[in-house]
């Protein structure tokens, strides 16, 4: 693992930051140092769970991860240091910790997207703990100044004040109907959260189930069930993709997926909360939308199905 053995530096394969190889866990992201990389044949690397009671340093403050099933992040905030989070993840706080509301811009957009309108801000000195309420893994993403990451909505747990938070349109949608009857569907949510570090900061995410990461090569593509996406590099391009299974009968529904195109890192979760919906066609796909029909005889489709010319490359 040591990239420069003579200098005794260690580059963590998960957060890609240098640290001390003698410590049991990466001080930047908490990933165990001694764990061998679990890479499958397809190129997915399992994000190793942060060990119980592992510590992560950020600024003058410290975070300790407790629990392995529904992990809790306990923060010891140094005087003047701030973190922010959504109020529903707050587990407990010392009375001395200053808690305040942090207003977010574009409140109407966030309300439409089902996102929290107000964040909570905690200022040290003091201790607080945050936790999601689903079995899974807590993922620490240290960000260097200028570095950004795009996170699927509802996975954000906490960030330091040096990390700015904005949200972008996912552009992964399809539309049914026209004019006033036009209805939009967003299989991976309307917005994706973008976190950008102004200076070095820490971002905590919660993945439901297990988390896997993969580095896509330039122009490499992967087709993913939409809700499984956890985060991605901003360089990874995402667009809507539809697949129609081959079937002698024409009533088979479409399978909405998202197509991710490298280069860059993507992370997925293994518990994604499938929602059964009926999708028989579309009038318009989001930008660069693609689709594939595995039916050898497209003429047997029901005539009511509306689909454009094949865009699949």
């Amino acid at each position, binding site marked *: 693992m040591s990239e420069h053995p003579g200098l005794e530096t260690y580059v963590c394969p998960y957060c890609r930051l240098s640290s001390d190889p003698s410590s049991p866990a990466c001080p930047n992201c908490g990933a165990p140092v001694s764990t061998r990389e679990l890479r499958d044949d*397809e190129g997915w690397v399992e994000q190793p*769970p942060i060990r119980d009671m592992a510590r992560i340093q950020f600024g003058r403050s410290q975070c300790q991860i407790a629990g392995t099933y529904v992990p809790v992040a306990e923060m010891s905030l140094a005087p003047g240091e701030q973190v922010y989070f959504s109020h529903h993840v707050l587990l407990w706080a010392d009375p001395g910790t200053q808690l305040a509301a942090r207003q977010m811009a574009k409140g109407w957009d966030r309300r439409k997207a089902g996102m929290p309108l107000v964040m909570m801000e905690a200022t040290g000195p003091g201790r607080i703990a945050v936790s999601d309420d689903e*079995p899974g893994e807590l993922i620490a993403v240290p960000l260097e100044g200028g570095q950004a990451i795009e996170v699927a909505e509802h996975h954000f747990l906490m960030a330091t004040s040096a990390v700015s938070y904005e949200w972008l349109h996912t552009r992964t949608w399809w539309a049914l109907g026209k004019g006033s009857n036009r209805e939009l569907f967003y299989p991976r949510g309307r917005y994706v959260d973008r976190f950008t570090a102004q200076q070095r900061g820490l971002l905590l995410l919660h993945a439901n189930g297990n988390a896997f990461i993969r580095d896509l090569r330039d122009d490499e*593509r992967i087709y993913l069930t939409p809700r499984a996406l956890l985060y991605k590099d901003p360089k990874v391009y995402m667009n809507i993709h539809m697949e129609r*299974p081959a079937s002698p009968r024409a009533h088979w*529904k479409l399978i909405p997926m998202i197509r991710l195109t490298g280069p860059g890192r993507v992370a997925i979760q*293994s518990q994604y909360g499938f929602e059964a919906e009926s999708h028989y066609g579309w009038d318009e796909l989001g930008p660069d939308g693609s689709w594939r029909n595995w039916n050898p005889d497209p003429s047997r489709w029901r005539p009511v199905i509306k689909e454009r010319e094949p865009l699949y490359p």
Partner: protein
Amino acid sequence: MAVHAVPSRSTRGQGSNVPVAVGLARLVVMGVGRPPHAERRGAAAVERIACSWCHYENEPGRTSCGTCGAPLDVANAVSESGWRAAPRLREMAEFRVGNVTCQIAGQVVPVAEFTLADGDTIYFEQHTLLWKERTVSLTGKNLKSAGRRTIAGMPHSVIEAGGPGRIAVTRDASGEVVVLPLHPGIETDVRGHAFLAASQNVGYDFIRIEKLASMLHGGPGMYLDRFVASDTQGLLLLHGYGNVFQRRLGVGEKILVEPGGFLYKDAPVTVSPVPVQAGAGFRHANWAELTGPGRVGIQSMYVHRHSS
């Protein structure tokens, strides 16, 4: 996907011919029952390791079973009552049945990843699809008696994925993947919503359990999925919620199981409702009484219908 007719009652019971599980994870077998891919070296006896879960005889040096992925170098987890914990598959454990290679990843919500060669096929329910490569083809298959299955809240169709390429499925809930290599002709009955994936040569049907409707699903009807391999060994993956335990019942041996905890059984094992002893608060609750011979699998995480 090959869908086979359910054999008559008289042809069942072959599950009892499977050797009874031994008390050790490692069983050294001398020179008999050589697996097809084992290299033969003269007449010398070759030590092979029998998997305590699926009884497949593995070549020496393996640490996990080549057919079900179970660790071969760990002590058996069998309770004093005889329940054997389903093997906790090691991260990235890989195994192979026929031409289909499967790898299990993740411990909380495990993912099953398949590597399919050209012409290889697996099938699964649509909502379990996690990701796939571009070259993997998808074909929709409607199951028999789709109307009855729909009414019972069961899936009425599956998706068949064809190689070449890679594809991953997951059941989207905490628990364990249970790998059941199916010997030809052996029928396995599985509770609804536990099926994860199966190889093409495994037939998928269902049977109706009379009088158990209110016990197991609380709905108007209750079906068990029935899987049977055709002429070659097949692969069946189930998802057990929480932890999974298995016990082999002898002929006429009975066990009472909370209906929600029941996961799978061999076809010869019969199920019948037994009322919980009358008392305040029990109302009309029933146990599922399972009578051997054969294997019975249970899961530790379920919703108890009277406390939910």
